[in-house]
């Protein structure tokens, strides 16, 4: 295992240095957005894949994290980039708090209804930001502090991705994850076996919204500009597509899917589409075909590095 970790660290650093030295800033930005997409996909995968609670409001939590962190750095902490990790965590905390508040009444509902409530929550967050002049309203919030150069941005975002992955993966294989899995398989049976249904679901929702907020904060500091339009229903759907494509319940699947689906539209960018976002054509087709032919996603519930089932 130790050997694998060393190899991973070396390849992580090497990728960063190669990107820094040989590739242009466009591809560098893509690498960062891949990592942010992966964080978002992981956060959704935890609540939807592991705990089987369908959330369509990930963009709302993302917006909370992004705006909190952006406002904190710009207005209170004097534009210093080395505080970004701190404010990003605060943004994630705010998002987690909101997630907890949403989850308090929501788990009386299940399935479709929970999807609607979370979707409604995201929409309400968006409309409130839209009407809030202090943070720019519909014009968006610009000139957010950015990371000074690619290597710092790469390593910080990368470390946050690794953190997210490790935490969520270990939660998945912990007793807590197994509890959630039991709920996922058969709620009533799990309750009979002594799993605290509502409490476990709430905790899972809180964890998921924490990482969604973290991803949102990093998104804001990566682009330097956020607007309510970036956190619309389409963003939630995009995150959902990453998670579903990789396989609900598979953490490494989400990262893989985020990588493929971030790279694919860029490769196809040369096709003539008349200024339409090509992702929004490829993704739904992929989604529909996937649901019909391979509903469990690329990896199902398995992980890439688990060679044999324990």
């Amino acid at each position: 295992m130790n050997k694998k970790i060393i190899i991973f660290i070396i390849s992580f650093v090497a990728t960063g240095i190669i990107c820094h030295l040989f590739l242009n800033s466009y591809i560098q930005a893509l690498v960062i957005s891949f990592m942010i997409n992966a964080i978002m996909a992981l956060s959704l995968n935890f609540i939807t894949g592991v705990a089987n609670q369908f959330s369509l409001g990930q963009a709302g939590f993302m917006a909370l994290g992004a705006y909190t962190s952006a406002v904190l750095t710009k207005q209170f902490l004097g534009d210093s980039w080395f505080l970004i990790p701190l404010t990003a965590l605060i943004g994630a905390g705010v998002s987690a708090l909101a997630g907890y508040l949403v989850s308090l009444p929501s788990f009386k509902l299940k399935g479709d209804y929970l999807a609607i409530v979370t979707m409604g929550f995201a929409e309400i967050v968006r409309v409130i930001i839209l009407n809030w002049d202090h943070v720019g309203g519909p014009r968006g919030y610009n000139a957010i502090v950015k990371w000074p150069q690619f290597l710092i941005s790469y390593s910080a975002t990368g470390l946050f991705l690794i953190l997210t992955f490790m935490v969520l993966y270990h939660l998945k294989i912990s007793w807590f994850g197994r509890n959630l899995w039991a709920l996922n398989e058969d709620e009533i049976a799990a309750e009979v076996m002594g799993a605290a249904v509502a409490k476990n679901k709430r905790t899972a929702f809180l964890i998921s919204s924490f990482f969604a907020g973290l991803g949102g904060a990093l998104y804001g500091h990566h682009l330097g500009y956020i607007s309510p339009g970036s956190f619309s229903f389409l963003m939630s759907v995009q995150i959902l597509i990453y998670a579903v494509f990789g396989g609900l319940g598979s953490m490494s699947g989400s990262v893989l899917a985020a990588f493929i689906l971030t790279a694919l539209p860029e490769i196809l960018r040369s096709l003539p589409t008349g200024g339409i976002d090509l992702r929004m054509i490829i993704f739904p087709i992929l989604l529909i075909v996937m649901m019909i032919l391979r509903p469990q996603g690329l990896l199902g519930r398995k992980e890439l590095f688990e060679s044999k089932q324990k």
Partner: protein
Amino acid sequence: MQEFLQHTLNGLSFGSVYALVALGYTMVYGILAMINFAHSDIYMMGAFGAFYVIRFFNMGDPSPLHFTIGLLASMIFAGFIGFCVEKFAYKPLRKSDKMNVLITAIGVSILFEFGGQIVFGADPKSFPQLLSNEVVFTFSDISFQMVDIMIYVVTFISLIGLSYLINKTQTGRAMRAVSSRPDIAPLMGINSNKIISTTFVVGSVLAGIAAVLVAIKYPKIDPMMGVKIGTSSFVAAVFGGIGSLPGAVIGGYILGLGEYYLVGYGASTYKEALSFSLLILVLLLKPAGLMGTKTKEKI
């Protein structure tokens, strides 16, 4: 007072449209227990179907005949799209997990919206004025236009027709059977696939009617036109109790009136948030909606 009446009038027109679209949501939910996210896009496709048929025959000037043809074109086109969506996207998933169907529905919806932007163009098109703009009569300073009257009349006829179909015909009986016991209905000799398909077509036709009415009242159509109306109608359907037909109509009118009072008296930018807040409140306080039936979880 006059202002209030005017808002009421507008609210009722929009309420009619919401009711028509909400019926589609609620019928599909009643029969398949799925939220048909693509319904708002079937509505959009209906408007575009009418637009192209009218342009093809060059019938852009106001006349009752042209209005009827536009309406029929939209109904047929929307019904056809609804049929295809059900056949190619939802039918292969009849046996699979509920979440998969929901995800597919979202996929279909996005595909129509962005595919529509490529096929039709993303810029809004101006829908021909199929009904004359003249004021038919005035009542205490409120003028009733032809369009508004036609919205009420057409909605009324459609609702009567739907109620006849559901309550009096053999197909309607089969629909109710499949909706109440999907596992038993096939044993009684009902071809449930055919009934589900019919339900989709009927819901889509209603959406097509609504689309033409809206397109005549607000003559700008674009591939994203379904999103706002779809969201509000969906809220109306849940508010009225999803799965219940009278609930969808009542929900549609309440939401239409509510939104127009809200827009009329100030808070127009909060319109969408309000409909969702209302929705969340309803779901938390009375999850079955106004007219819905409460289902018990069985082991």
